[in-house]
């Protein structure tokens, strides 16, 4: 059993569930305590010892089904099938098996174990023998479904199917000719069906092993993969997962901020002030004074391109801005295509989904026009320049594809002069900047940093730098 658990642990690891050696040991101890007669308890024991992240639970359930419902179930089903084909009730079948056992005993000890177990319908022993044979031929090294036939034959050989066939023939011959005896006719039928059943068991078992392989090969740790995938190529399911990731990100951000704030609460010991204040105590330092660090509240102004070309990316950026706005009081957000409009109050008052939908739906600005960064920047410079002071970080998200309009890059210079820093995040890959109608190079001159931000991991990095230390 221990082997089986260790193999199961490996299977889980192959599927991106982290299972440590210590946890495998726990599982072994737990299994020894619980036993595996009661499937639900056994499953619960493995689940609690091996799976520690709730998002791994579905993978565990799936793998458990495949791995442990295995051979025993197949053999049981095959036995049932034989009984059904012979149209007997369970009781009749039981009595019939007893007859068979008597007949086998009369035949003496020449029979192989396999034949005996098979005919006596001893599923436990049969399972053990097949599992042993499977280990012998290293069935778990099967990799492609094309190999299934080959492995099925190998398994049959390892089990000793050749010998079994011979034995069956001789048993068949030793039975009285069937015209005389109904019982012997049934016995003959039973032998044949059993042979077929064994064949069936072997095939199904090998196929099931193949399925396990496939699960193993299937996408492993999925979140990590999404992290490196560009915003443009996400499917709906991945978008959902991405949403989840951004929420997690915001939460992580909150805890980072909490820790950094706590560390920053007290500054260094201020000797001068301490001495001055304690003059009245004769210089004995009763009251200690520390530098008080000024809290560095981030003031962020976010300009987000919501034109069709960057739609996915801007959605996530807005979602991030939304969390940021929940976190800090001084965040202002704007969306633009050709016009520019403020969405700060929208984000403040509504819940995330509604706010995002409203921001992207065209209520604030016309989202169906062609991008015109120049005019949007000029409008911003005219109307909202007051939003920026020397502590403001300005973040612009956009691909800088200006449709050959006037770039008005002087607006950026104005913004840059007033702001603490100006960051441009471009969801296009770096190689394409400056080609075609991209004005990235012209705008980049006025920015402190220009980052490629086309997937979640890059977003992570950007955010980490944004949070003040």
């Amino acid at each position, binding site marked *: 059993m221990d082997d089986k658990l260790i193999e199961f642990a490996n299977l889980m690891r192959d599927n991106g569930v982290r299972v440590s050696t210590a946890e495998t040991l726990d599982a072994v101890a737990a299994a020894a305590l619980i036993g595996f007669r009661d499937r639900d*308890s056994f499953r*619960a024991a493995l689940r609690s010892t091996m799976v520690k*992240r709730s998002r791994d639970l579905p993978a565990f359930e799936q793998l458990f089904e495949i791995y442990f419902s295995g051979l025993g179930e197949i053999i049981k089903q095959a036995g049932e099938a034989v009984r059904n084909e012979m149209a007997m009730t369970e009781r009749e079948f039981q009595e019939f098996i007893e007859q068979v056992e008597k007949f086998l005993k009369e035949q003496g000890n020449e029979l192989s174990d396999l034949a005996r177990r098979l005919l006596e319908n001893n599923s436990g022993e049969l399972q053990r023998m097949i599992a042993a044979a499977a280990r012998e031929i290293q069935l778990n090294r099967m990799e492609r479904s094309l190999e299934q036939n080959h492995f099925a034959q190998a398994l049959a050989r390892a089990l000793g199917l050749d010998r079994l066939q011979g034995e069956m023939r001789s048993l068949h011959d030793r039975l009285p000719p069937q015209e005389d005896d109904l019982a012997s006719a049934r016995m003959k039928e039973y032998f044949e069906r059993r042979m077929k059943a064994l064949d069936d068991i072997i095939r199904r078992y090998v196929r099931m092993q193949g399925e396990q392989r496939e699960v193993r090969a299937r996408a492993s740790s999925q979140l990590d993969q999404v992290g490196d995938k560009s915003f443009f190529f996400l499917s709906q399911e991945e978008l959902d997962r991405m949403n989840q990731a951004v929420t997690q990100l915001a939460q992580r951000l909150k805890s980072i901020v909490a820790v950094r704030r706590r560390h920053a609460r007290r500054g260094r010991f201020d000797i001068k002030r301490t001495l001055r204040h304690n003059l009245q105590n004769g210089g004995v330092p009763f009251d200690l004074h520390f530098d008080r660090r000024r809290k560095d509240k981030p003031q962020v102004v976010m300009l987000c391109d919501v034109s069709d070309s960057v739609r996915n990316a801007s959605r996530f950026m807005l979602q991030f801005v939304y969390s940021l706005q929940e976190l800090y009081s001084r965040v202002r957000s704007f969306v633009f295509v050709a016009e520019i409009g403020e969405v700060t109050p929208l984000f403040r008052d509504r819940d995330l989904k509604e706010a995002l939908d409203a921001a992207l739906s065209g209520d604030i600005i016309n989202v169906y026009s062609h991008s015109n960064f120049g005019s949007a920047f000029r409008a911003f410079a005219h109307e909202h320049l007051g939003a920026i002071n020397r502590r403001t970080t300005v973040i612009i998200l956009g691909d800088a594809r200006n449709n050959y309009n006037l770039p008005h890059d002087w607006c950026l210079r104005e913004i840059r002069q007033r702001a603490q820093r100006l960051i441009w995040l471009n969801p296009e890959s770096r190689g394409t900047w400056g080609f075609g109608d991209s004005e990235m190079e012209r705008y980049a001159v006025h920015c402190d940093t220009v980052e490629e931000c086309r997937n979640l991991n890059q977003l992570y990095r950007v955010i980490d730098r944004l949070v003040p230390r």
Partner: protein
Amino acid sequence: MFSSIEDVSDRFAEQKYIASRRIATVIYLASRLMKPILVEGAAGVGKTELAKVLAAALDYELIRLQCYEGLDESKALYEWEYAKQLLYSQILKDKIGEVLSGSRGLAEAVDQIAREDNVFFSERFILPRPLLRAITSERPVVLLVDEIDKADAEFEAFLLELLSDFQVTVPEIGTLRARSIPLVVLTSNNAREMSDALKRRCLHLYIDFPDHAQELAIVKLKAPEASHSLAEEVVTMVQSLRKIDLKKTPGISETIDWIKALTLLNLDTLEHQLVNDTLDTIVKYEADIRKAQEELKNHLRDLRSRRPPASGEDKDLLN
């Protein structure tokens, strides 16, 4: 100690807690393997309750440590009772003077005091906090570390050390070893991911919202005064509320509160006006209430179409 999984279920049932096979198995394993249990799940599925019931079922004392941001060792483990020490030294001033009377010179006096200082740094002046109480208790206890995700990562690391050795070193006194290993239950709302090291040492139990039948059974156990039809309707309603996207999904405790409130108002089926008025017992946010009302309307409409046509009193169901 529990003798089998069934024993766990039975004793939990005595305490009015319906433990699924999975929960019972994990509890049994934890008590036999002496491992802490990390319980995760949404708010209101009965995580804290689990620990309370565990203590009651075993007739152990429950020691609870509520975690919060900034929780540190002096709040969780032990603290010196400065005030008491000060008081004692004031009262014993004369005695101290006596001890010191024979000494010549400052150095000798300090030496003499130093020889006696373990009087003041003894277990007498230690103020035990939950963790120390749990491991120095004569009888085994259930230690509930509630909402561990609220505590800082440093505290988690500290807890880890305690949970692996079950001993504490107080510099002035020495090492205090556990007299009996406590059963530890940690709960987490998943506000942040716990460290792998902690998870590795624990048995993990994820409690999900119960299905319809389970919740009905729980409600009947906890609020036996409610009529069957009301319980049935409320549970169906809450189950459907959980499917829509709410800021805070109603938990089991909310279901029970709601049923109790409705029973108090002498209702035996859901009625629109009263349900609307009491909706804030299960839904806690303004935006959620709006969504819930919408859902409720649909729900009641369905319900009415299925219910046998009643007399005029049903007319104002949908105002």
